[in-house]
């Protein structure tokens, strides 16, 4: 089954004359780990924003073509339906974390979706175990290393249990030790059958991918 289908996708920002994405076509199968690579400025992050629905919800511009998530056009999905199907993690961990404790950070997403309190508690315990950060539960995310912050950002997204995970250059702010830990978590998620789209320009960071898509021509 196709988890993501991108058909004739073109996009340009309001303040720009050139198209960042032009007639992009590809698909990702359910359970597949796909890497999207390309030079800086080729539109990798813009593509991630289109797939996750952030374009046109948060970032506006001229968009044509369509993005289908499990056969449904992302434009027709509500916020709740989108975030339970797709999760996205960005480069900068500090702007993805906004709560005073890790527990609050993890609870934020399920709280927005009106998940029961007991269920939130169960999910928090499970996810902290997955990323091996149980002892930091009541710590302030500001006091963590970049790698740990990125792990919490991943965990915060996983709290909504999305079937598809988009990682938009999530290693670029992280040291080697942190990269290794994040890579192990992603590998675990891959083994669990999660569909993963990894965007990066360093081949080392996408070694767990099944397939590579080059953005920018070929």
């Amino acid at each position, binding site marked *: 089954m196709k988890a993501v289908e991108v058909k004739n996708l073109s996009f340009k920002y309001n303040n720009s004359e050139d198209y960042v994405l032009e007639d992009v076509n590809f698909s990702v199968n359910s359970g597949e780990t796909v890497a999207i690579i390309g030079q800086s400025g080729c539109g990798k992050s813009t593509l991630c924003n289109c797939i996750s629905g*952030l374009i046109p919800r*948060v970032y506006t511009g001229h968009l044509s073509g369509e993005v289908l998530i499990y056969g449904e056009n992302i434009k027709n999905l509500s916020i709740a339906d*989108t975030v339970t199907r797709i999760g*996205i993690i960005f480069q900068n961990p500090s*702007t993805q974390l*906004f709560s*005073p*404790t890790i527990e609050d950070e993890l609870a934020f997403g399920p709280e927005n979706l009106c998940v029961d309190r007991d269920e939130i508690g169960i999910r928090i315990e499970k996810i902290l175990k997955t990323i091996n950060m149980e002892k930091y539960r009541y710590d302030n995310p500001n006091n963590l290393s970049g790698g740990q912050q990125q792990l919490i950002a991943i965990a915060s997204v996983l709290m909504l249990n999305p079937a598809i995970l988009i990682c938009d250059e999530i290693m670029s702010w992280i040291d080697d030790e942190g990269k290794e830990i994040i890579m192990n978590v992603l590998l675990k998620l891959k083994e669990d059958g999660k569909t993963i789209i990894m965007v990066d320009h360093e081949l080392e960071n996408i070694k767990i991918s099944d397939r590579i898509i080059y953005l920018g021509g070929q």
Partner: protein
Amino acid sequence: MNDIDPRTKLIQVLILSTLALIYNKLSLLSLILLAAIVIALLNRINLLSILIRLKRLVKMIILIALIQSLLTKTGNPIFRIGNFTLLTDYGLIKSLEFILRLGIIIVSAAIITTSSSREIIQGLIQWHCPYEIAFMVSVAIRFLPIFKEEMTDMITAIQLRGIDLHKVKFNKKIQVYKYILTPITINSVIKAKELAAAMEMRGFRAYPQRTSYMVLKMQAFDYIIIGLSIAAAFLFFTFQ
């Protein structure tokens, strides 16, 4: 005392700041400040370290008070140079009032900070304050240290280019601060966009209502403190 409900602290602070606004007498303002200090100490707040951290603000408060006292010409002269009145008793009283009031506000703010921003937000939500407003306050608190850090980085970057901000003339200093503030403003807008994207992808405002994993529960001790605080304020109001 640090385990008390944030709403109890908010009520105490509300009472203290309201009294500070209502009364003008130096003796009464001193009493209110004393009460605020006692509450702060009971909350195990290290007021001295706060004063040290806020030394720039304290200096500014004293400077403003000094200017205010010098510019007030009403009242009986205390200090004169020839025919020119430099300081009057009324001006001195007004400046002391100003110092005491700001002292009460600073100590009150310190009392609030013994609860985390999440606890305060939860307190406000349970008082039926809209979540979006409470959340905005929390985000502002969360990002303040980041902006401070960015400001420091920009100043360092400017200084590394050979500009000593202490030696630059006032009109040029404004120009330099323009160079510092422009990238900070742009970065803030970028950060706000990134934050909005992260919030959107975590289902912010997906539904009109939301659940809350944290739930605050008032204990008997909280009700006793609130009762005592209101009674003290009432007595103060009656017998002042």
